[in-house]
């Protein structure tokens, strides 16, 4: 299968890169989440008398996806933020026609010699925790900074009105739970009712929201520099606090919510984000978005469990999400809304 995919990829890429002698090699599947199949490969070709070797990534739609995400959205977000100079891989090609590789896909630069932090690792960044934290929270502020229209993303899905960011996202994820729950979810339902009864203030601005900015979705090199922010498939327009709250969530805190994302102290993380983005994390508004973040997590894990249980996507990570992560976020929400024991 890999050999056949290599040949088809080669056939597709050669004209795209104006390199008729292009050869694809070393194609291998790598972990990349349940919503896309991810492969790394090498493309070798000659250009202007020089021999070129490029390390590239193929992200192909699976037969079934955890959350229906738009690869066009993901590709455009990569392009916009790569051009802004953020640590984002260079996107190379987007193909929506299934003829080339059986399903839609896109190709981007591979960032080599890096690692992602596991959410189960107790101290994923070790001596680089401070440096990673400074960059992690600062980059998140920089994502929120530009006007979406100025970077060509003004037509992204999401709220256009600062007063409706919260209700737009709440309705989106409530619908996911309505459609995908396999059994009644009393904590998720109570959270939805609480969020609706206690709306946050209007967003301070409409920003591009990454949608899944967290441990596991960025690459760090051996010196502790963040080299790539990945997985933009849930990018949309909304309240920048949505991304901050998601990144602060205890599930990505490596057992220590006082140091979110396994990095710096929570207050400092928020201050770095505020300074970098020119934004304010007002306490009450952030508290609403943190409850929402855990509910959004539940919705994603409920979907994962359903996909797995019904055999549509039996990636091991879906079983993990639908079991471990679901139980974790139920506990977080029950303690937050019901009062910590």
């Amino acid at each position, binding site marked *: 299968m890999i050999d056949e995919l290599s040949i088809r990829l080669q056939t597709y890429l050669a004209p795209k890169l104006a390199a008729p002698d292009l050869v694809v090699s070393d194609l*291998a599947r790598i*972990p990349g989440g349940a919503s896309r199949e991810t492969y790394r490969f090498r493309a070798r070709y000659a250009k202007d008398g020089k021999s070129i070797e490029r390390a590239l990534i193929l992200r192909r739609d699976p037969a079934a996806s955890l959350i229906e995400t738009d690869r066009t959205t993901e590709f455009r977000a990569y392009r916009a933020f790569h051009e802004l100079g953020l640590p984002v891989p260079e996107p190379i090609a987007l193909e929506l026609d299934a003829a080339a590789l059986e399903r839609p896909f896109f190709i981007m630069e591979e960032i080599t010699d890096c690692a992602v932090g596991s959410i189960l690792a107790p101290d994923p960044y070790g001596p680089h925790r401070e440096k990673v934290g400074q960059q992690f929270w600062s980059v998140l502020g920089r994502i929120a900074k530009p006007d979406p229209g100025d970077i060509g993303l003004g037509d992204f899905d999401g709220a256009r009105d600062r007063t409706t960011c919260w209700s737009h996202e709440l309705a989106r994820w409530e619908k996911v739970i309505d459609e995908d729950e396999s059994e*009644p979810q009393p904590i998720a339902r109570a959270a939805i009712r609480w969020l609706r009864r206690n709306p946050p203030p209007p967003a301070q601005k409409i920003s591009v929201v990454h949608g899944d900015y967290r441990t596991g979705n960025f690459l760090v090199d051996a010196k502790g520099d963040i080299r790539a922010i990945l997985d933009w498939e849930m990018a949309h327009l909304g309240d920048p606090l949505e991304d901050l709250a998601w990144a602060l969530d205890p599930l990505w805190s490596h*057992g220590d919510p006082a140091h979110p994302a396994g990095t710096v102290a929570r207050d400092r993380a928020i201050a770095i984000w505020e300074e970098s983005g020119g934004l304010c994390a007002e306490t009450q508004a952030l508290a609403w978005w943190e409850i929402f973040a855990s509910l959004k997590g539940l919705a994603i894990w409920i979907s994962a469990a359903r996909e797995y249980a019904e055999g549509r996507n039996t990636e091991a990570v879906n079983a993990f999400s639908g079991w471990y992560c679901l*139980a*974790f976020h139920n*506990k977080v*929400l*029950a303690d937050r809304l019901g009062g910590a024991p």
Partner: protein
Amino acid sequence: MKPEVDQILGISAGQLMTSLVPLLPNSYAQGSSAVLSFMMLFAAQEYERGAEIRATDNAEMRMVLGLLAPIVDDAELKKKLEDAAISTDPSLLISKLNQSNAHLRALLIALHTHLESQGSDAARAGERRIWDVLKASAARRLLNPPGG
């Protein structure tokens, strides 16, 4: 049975991680197999505690439904709560416990929603009792990650 199922799963997960995963040809296969070994460790935990968790959840939900039924003014809901409160689990099979659990959860949601719409102190106290049940259930179902 000796060895017990949880022991078999735990040892198998360890062998998978230490002996087999390093032999796999690429990081996708290695990563997926590592997650599979986590699933085996979680399954080992659940083998030991699964029936107990569900039976306890069901007993606590029946208790709170019965306790709060008298303050519900919706006759139809009240009757359903009273019937559920005196129901029992016919079997300790996980599938049967899950069926009861889903029915009781649906009633708990209905009760919780109803009380939130009421203005009385009794309703507020009832909400707190429901949250106590939900918090206990969530804590009970939390999984211990490998090494955690």
